[in-house]
């Protein structure tokens, strides 16, 4: 038995009213609902760096494979590491300006900072003219950060950062200044990033990771 349409509450009318509300009132009254409330993805806060092989760019990431017997770099890690420690023990947080400043005394501190900065590091395969690396930059609340590059002897571009082992890195280096979000996102960073051997022997000579005497 059907009710008189005029007597029966018509839910569609409510639905149609909701149409008018649309994205408007629903947004206003969404408190308590299960909708997500996270910030929009800060896509404009990413950073682009061009590395070796890039044609027409002025910011090559460079290394000399001859020093390690022509062992090629198969992939690179590029990104930002938030520095929270004092590299020289002075209590002052300074940027690494030379790879030689990484010592047994501060290596673990740097590794910890790198582990906590995994959201801002990317592994990239080196192939042909593939030349640009994009990564999100750390929030300002994190404090100072440095651009870092790490050359890997294996292709780990299909793996995760957590799967890099201690014998994979053969080169590394820093852009020798702290950066922030004032670096214009989406443009190629102009400074060169020169990588130096990951391991040196006690005499300062380059050696492969895993070899005895690697500092």
């Amino acid at each position, binding site marked *: 038995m*059907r009710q008189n349409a005029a007597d029966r509450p018509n839910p569609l009318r409510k639905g149609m009213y909701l*149409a008018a509300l649309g994205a408007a*009132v629903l947004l206003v009254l969404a408190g308590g609902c299960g909708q997500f409330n996270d910030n929009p993805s800060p896509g404009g806060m990413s950073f682009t760096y061009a590395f070796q092989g890039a044609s027409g760019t002025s910011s090559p990431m460079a290394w000399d494979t001859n020093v390690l017997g022509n062992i090629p770099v198969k992939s690179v890690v590029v990104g930002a590491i938030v520095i929270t420690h004092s590299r020289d023990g002075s209590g002052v947080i300074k940027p690494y300006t030379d790879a030689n400043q990484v010592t047994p005394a501060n290596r673990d501190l740097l590794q910890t900072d790198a582990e906590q900065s995994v959201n801002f590091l990317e592994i990239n395969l080196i192939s042909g003219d593939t030349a640009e690396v994009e990564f999100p930059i750390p929030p300002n609340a994190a404090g100072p950060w440095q651009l870092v590059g790490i050359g890997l002897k294996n292709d780990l571009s299909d793996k*995760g950062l957590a799967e890099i082992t201690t014998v994979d890195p053969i080169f590394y280096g820093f852009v020798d200044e702290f950066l922030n979000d004032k670096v214009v996102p989406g443009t190629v960073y102009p400074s060169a990033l020169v990588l130096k051997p990951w391991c040196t022997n006690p005499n300062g000579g380059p050696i492969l990771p895993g070899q005895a005497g690697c500092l």
Partner: protein
Amino acid sequence: MVRFNEGISTVNMRVWSVLIAVAFSLAASGAWAQAPSNDPPEILTSELALKTVLESDKLDVNFVFIDQDKVAEVKINGEKQPITPGDTVLLTRSFTFTQDVTRVEVSATDEKGHTRTVTYTVFRPGVDPDKALAQEGQPSGELAWFGGYDVRSEQDSNPTNDLSSPISIKGVNVTGVVPDSRQSDSRLNLNGSVGVTKGMWNGFAGASKITYSKKENENFNVQQLYLGGGLTKPINDTLAFAFNYTFTDVNLGSHDYLQSHTLSPALRRAVDPGDGGTGVSQYGLNVVRKQFALKAFQQDTTDLSLTMDYRSIDKEKQDTYHRVFEYGTSSEGIKLSDGTDPSEYTYYGLSFGWNNRWDSGLLVDAGLGTQYRKYKSDKPLTTDTPLGATRVDIPMQVSAGLGWQFRPQLRLMGTYSYLFNLSNKSPFVRQIIGVGLNGAF
């Protein structure tokens, strides 16, 4: 319960005549003779039932008005009719109906001032009364407006979505890059919207603004402006087609971020929730064209999503229930030199919401939601998890609200939400506690 077709007759004008009308009047006179004198006049006609489907657009209608006292005045649709006052008054009117549904309101007043009014609903030939009344139930051609606001002060435990996980990843205790002591920040969350409806058309506009207190979080300040409109076209008594367009402008920090154009066709169906209340299911498609401000870095993209939305309200209009299933794609338009877009993902979502609403007094909200986001190319921290070889995020949110309604335009509300992102790339925990005022007009 009233049968829908009860009272509807099909008129053959040739059958009825003034003579029959007079016969009615004579029959009614007996009843009139015994009627109390304070009754209003009887209104009789043989051509019209309370609901009548015509066979022709033109109809001559004979009315008979009877009263123990003299019938002094007769009006049809507010227009006074020329009559000779008396115990029995006969009146013939010719009508030409040009609208699918016409209401003929007839009133008669006796010399003592007693008035009776009868409204006849007349449908043109070929009109389906069911459909016509459903359409007529839509907002009339009159302009109606609505609005709402929500002002909240909130404490956000993790505005940056900084890494944090209750469990270690590959033996590493994940704490992120923002020291816990500096992570939390307060923010002001403002929302307002207005809209209008006219017939099946609607339009709306609104704005929202989130402002963090700490300068270091200003990149997470959000300003949104939106406006749009659309239509809702009934198909039958339980089904309607809706189509909306929304334009949105989003600023992040102090910079332009994107403008989007959203087209949302949907099918709505009335559903009986079984408790005497009302419910509406909606099956919709959203097509969102995003135009990013940072052209050098982000390319324009199109997001698609399919939604199944259900809302219900109980018989007493005190409890509402809302659930949404969704499937879609999303991208921030980041194109790397190798052609990949690390921001691109597909998602399945599910959310539920309950609101208890007394007409005034206590307000209780509860919500639960989750999504499964599968990124197309973004790499995880490790592939050695059940989540697969690319990044997967599974955000899960529980929320609650407790408040007091002074009147619909003024409600005080405390809110809490807990968000945990289970991820092989970016696990984090975030809580937002707020208190504020909201209302609807």
